[in-house]
């Protein structure tokens, strides 16, 4: 077998690599474009304050979307996350209101642990119904969406659930409104969650397995991967991310109701897709997802700061901007 053709390999091997990179870069290009548009629309826009605000408030969707990146990469879909936010937030506030633990610091710690456990449990339920029950994830999580939201309505008896202890509230407030080294806590949390998620997805065995399962579950099975376990764990990761989002959500508003988180699932999925992950599964871009979440928030922010769009048309313009942003991405990738 001749080896002399090896030499020709060295020439231009970087090529196809590069356009993969470009696809990963595309959402960031769209983000940059939006920043420029925003700066033109309103001089306040580009201020540190405003940008920090936008980044901070994108935290909920961003963190949830990081979890969704796992689920979607594994070829599934979770529609229940919005309802899950409402449900876990209700449980957490009710727990804190119960006064089971006298010491506020201890109570807060226990509530955090409780919320995280609840998130994992909800995710596990979604995962098991989908994998063991062998129901299309779309339907399975639409069902649990109804369940979580229904339970929230029932817990709140149709009203709101509000954190009662002022002391607890005072102690918990900085978790959303505080800052670490000058950076708002939610931004720090976004970065931390994303870094961990990127590590798991790109640098661990589990992450590889997620992508393999999403890209071809038969190949994954023949490679000795426990497909159902991998998918279920992805749902659990989604649940944990929702719990983290709740941990930021509760101190912000100190209250929740059955309407909390409505349509967040669509926003989270949109963030994931705008970030460059395909809905068909088989590839995940965690940093792209974060970028997608920023883009969505920015579009709303620019609309609000600009004063020449009739408020009746905001929805229409947002829709158009999302489509245009995707077209920009596409044309970038194609040109390469």
């Amino acid at each position: 077998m001749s080896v002399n053709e090896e030499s020709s390999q060295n020439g231009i091997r970087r090529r196809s690599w590069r356009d993969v990179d470009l696809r990963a870069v595309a959402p960031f290009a769209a983000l940059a474009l939006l920043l420029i548009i925003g700066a033109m629309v309103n001089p306040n826009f580009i201020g540190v304050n405003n940008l920090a605000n936008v980044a901070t408030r994108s935290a909920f969707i961003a963190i949830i979307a990081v979890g969704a990146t796992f689920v979607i990469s594994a070829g599934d879909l979770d529609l229940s996350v919005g309802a899950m936010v409402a449900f876990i937030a209700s449980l957490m506030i009710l727990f804190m209101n119960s006064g089971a633990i006298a010491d506020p610091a201890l109570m807060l710690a226990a509530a955090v642990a409780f919320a995280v456990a609840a998130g994992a449990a909800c995710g596990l339920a979604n995962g098991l119904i989908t994998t063991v029950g062998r129901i299309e994830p779309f339907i399975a999580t639409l069902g649990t969406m109804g369940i979580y939201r229904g339970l929230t309505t029932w817990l709140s008896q149709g009203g709101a659930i509000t954190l009662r202890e002022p002391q607890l509230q005072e102690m918990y407030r900085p978790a959303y409104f505080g800052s670490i080294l000058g950076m708002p806590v939610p931004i720090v949390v976004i970065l931390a969650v994303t870094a961990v998620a990127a590590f798991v997805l790109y640098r661990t065995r589990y992450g590889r397995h997620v992508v393999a399962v999403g890209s071809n579950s038969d190949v994954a099975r023949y490679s000795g991967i426990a497909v159902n376990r991998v998918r279920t764990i992805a749902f659990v990761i989604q649940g944990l991310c929702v719990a983290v989002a709740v941990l930021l959500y509760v101190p912000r508003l100190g209250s929740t109701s059955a309407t909390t988180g409505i349509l967040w699932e669509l926003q989270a999925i949109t963030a994931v897709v705008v970030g460059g992950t395909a809905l068909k599964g088989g590839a995940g871009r965690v940093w792209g997802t974060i970028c997608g979440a920023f883009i969505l928030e920015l579009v709303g922010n620019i609309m609000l700061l600009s004063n020449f769009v009739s408020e009746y048309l905001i929805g229409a313009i947002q829709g158009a901007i999302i489509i245009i942003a995707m077209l920009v991405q596409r044309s970038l990738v194609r040109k390469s």
Partner: protein
Amino acid sequence: QDKNVTIGVSIPAADHGWTAGVVFHAERVAKLLMERHPGLNVIVKTSPDPASQANAVQDLETQGIDALVILPTDPDPLVNAIKEVKGKGTFVALVDRAPSVNDNSVRDLYVAGNNPALGQTAGEYIKATTPDAEVVVIRGLPIPIDQQRQDGFDKGIEGSNVKVLDRQYGNWNRDDAFKVMQDYLTKYPKIDVVWCQDDDMAVGVLQAIDQAKRTDIQYVVAGAGSKEMIKKVMDGDKMIPVDVLYPPAMVGTALEMTAANFFGQVPVRGVYTIDATLITKDNAKDFYFPESPF
């Protein structure tokens, strides 16, 4: 006066009839006031849900406002965001929906729509007109103002023979109300009165009754004061003998009072409650705005 004042107005998105009215009146009064006071700038922003309204409040603050007039989609979740603004010394006027803690720490001015009274007025009317009625109730969405109306209603019918057969959510949406009413009609062979607490839902309710050709239902009590329902009251429609006022125009009132705080002589503070007036054939024309979208 060459005083420069910016007022931010944050209201729910026009996602159903009543909120559409709110947007209409906010815009109307904003234009009026800006003509009257050259130094005044009013920015109106709408948001579909509490979370995005919290964002909108933040964005208004970014633009540098002197006063905030806010009609919260859902009050409790917005308390922190409002406090944040108020903490910076901005004048805050809260409209319609009160959080569980509603004092000076949250707002300077409270222009109150009276949700419990809306329920109570309807209840009292039913108690007075048909003391033995069997009533079905269509609720809105599971949020606190809906609960307050229900509680008010129960208080209104207290001590009478009025019996509530059922309560279900119609989501303040005419299509859903149509469905719920259809099922009520299947479920109960005899219904005397429908209380659906919202004019939008009444549209669906009336169609469902009409379709079933049922004659046992004596009348429907809705609420808010949309031009269509007020027209029916004015015309003496038997199915809609009354309407309970819950005017979207209250946001305009709040805006006017806020402007007065800056341009008038006296500071405006405190609570200003707008009654849930019962609209009857006699007073209907006072509340009829044909040019409003609602």
